[in-house]
């Protein structure tokens, strides 16, 4: 639920075109990936990144599932959303409020999420894109606070959210049982621990195995690191299979397909 194609301005990525990513997936034993444009995070007109992504995904639709990076504070996003869904086959969005200079409570963001919900898209949101300690000297982008996400899921109870590149969820309402929050979100494991403090195992217990999903962050990150968390997780094979793919398949199955 957390893969990318394209470029990152501050570090050379490898395996960042379709052939490269598919090779990386083959090596790691990953069948399918939800991919978004890394370049679109920095393009003012992020839709140009979606167009690049569509070119890359073409011919690989059986394995690469496009997610659109849209900036609701940038003009013409509604048109871009239509193109991404109707022409490019996007099954989800990826939002970057801090990179794109809006807040999750802005009306434009609410409008975009409502439009995505209307189309039964997954709305994914990376808490961060890179480790803060290795940021470029030109740029400081803070993590998205988990408290903002708590409010977000309450504002949009019918949306389907996936939060990736985050950790510390058991310390927030998002990772606690009986939190009163709608069960309209899943959590990606890429930064979580699966041993010692074992955040992954804690979340499985607290919010259910059906709401924890594999996210690798490839090709920014070695996908094997995320897969290893599932491998060593103290959980049933059924739970592991759900995290590895079953939950993602369910989220990506459009109600319109049923």
């Amino acid at each position, binding site marked *: 639920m957390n893969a990318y194609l394209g470029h990152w301005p501050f*570090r*050379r*990525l*490898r*395996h960042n075109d379709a052939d490269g990513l598919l090779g*990386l997936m083959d090596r*790691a034993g990953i069948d399918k990936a939800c991919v978004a444009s890394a370049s679109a995070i920095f393009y003012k007109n992020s839709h140009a990144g979606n167009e690049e992504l569509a070119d890359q995904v073409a011919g690989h639709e059986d394995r690469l599932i496009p997610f659109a990076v849209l900036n609701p504070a940038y003009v013409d996003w509604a048109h871009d959303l239509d193109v991404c869904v109707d022409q490019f086959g996007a099954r989800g969005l990826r939002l970057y409020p801090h990179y794109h200079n809006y807040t999750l409570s802005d009306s434009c963001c609410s409008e975009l999420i409502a439009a995505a919900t209307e189309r039964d898209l997954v709305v994914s949101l990376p808490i961060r894109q890179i*480790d803060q*300690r*290795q*940021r*470029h*000297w030109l740029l*400081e982008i803070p993590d998205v606070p988990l408290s903002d996400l708590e409010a977000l899921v309450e504002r949009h109870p019918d949306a389907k959210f996936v939060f990736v590149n985050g950790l510390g969820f058991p310390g927030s309402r998002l990772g606690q049982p009986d939190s009163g929050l709608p069960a309209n979100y899943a959590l990606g494991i890429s*930064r979580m*621990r*699966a*041993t*010692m403090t074992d955040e992954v195992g804690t979340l499985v217990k607290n919010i259910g195995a059906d709401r924890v999903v594999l996210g690798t*962050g*490839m*090709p*920014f*990150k*070695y*996908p*094997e*690191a*995320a*897969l*290893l*968390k599932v491998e*060593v997780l103290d959980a049933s094979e059924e739970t592991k299979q759900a995290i590895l793919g079953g939950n993602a398949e369910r989220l990506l199955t459009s109600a319109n397909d049923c």
Partner: protein
Amino acid sequence: MVIDAHAHLTWRSPQSDWEERDRSLIDAADRLGIDQLACSNLCPRPAVPENFTQGNEWVLDSMREYPDRILGYCFVNPGWIREAAEEVRKRVDQGFIGVKLYNEYFCNEPVLFPLAELCIELGVPILTHAGHSHYYVERQPRMSGATHIAELANRYPELMIICGHLGGGGDWEWQIKALRSAPTAYADTSGSVVDEGLIEMAVEVMGVERLLFACDMSMTAGVGKIRGAQISDEQREMIFGGNMQRILAQRGEAQ
């Protein structure tokens, strides 16, 4: 043999659940196929002799409890020149495998030189906390970057100096490039950062024989990045333990 070259035991404050936490480290090692963990026990600041000797005593205790699993680093504050030297001699004699430094001084400051010379004499490595970020790290004004480490390494080519956590010290490309010019320095691969390409660049720039597998408590990240790296099985074996075994053998030769 898989050796985690950078791990920590829990400070045994009365309110801490240190036994459970240390046991969970062993459990994680079991699940990840890690045979041995080279551990220090960092004391609370200020790192005065009373505190760092206490932490080392607890490391010794754990070495005795888990004799096949835990190797001990002796943590000292090198500013206490005489006390640090006495402590290192005593602990190496007790079977500790090296010295751990944190961020009390930059590695190239002269206050470290007596300790470096002692470690050469004893045939043990120094593992130092390290990092380089492109902003001022306010809480760690004397954290060594790889440039500081390279300077110490080139002053003492016989010293086995290990730059801590390439995956937990900010700009890893900087750290790796800085160590290119210090051919006797090692680096450990630990840290929570699992950026694709990190290990491959380190192998290409530094050479595989200078890289040591480690987790620094980020257990799956530590193992996962070595598993995922596009290197040969022989290189993976060297990183996972072969290189550290070579370092450990030096202590036996010195004694």
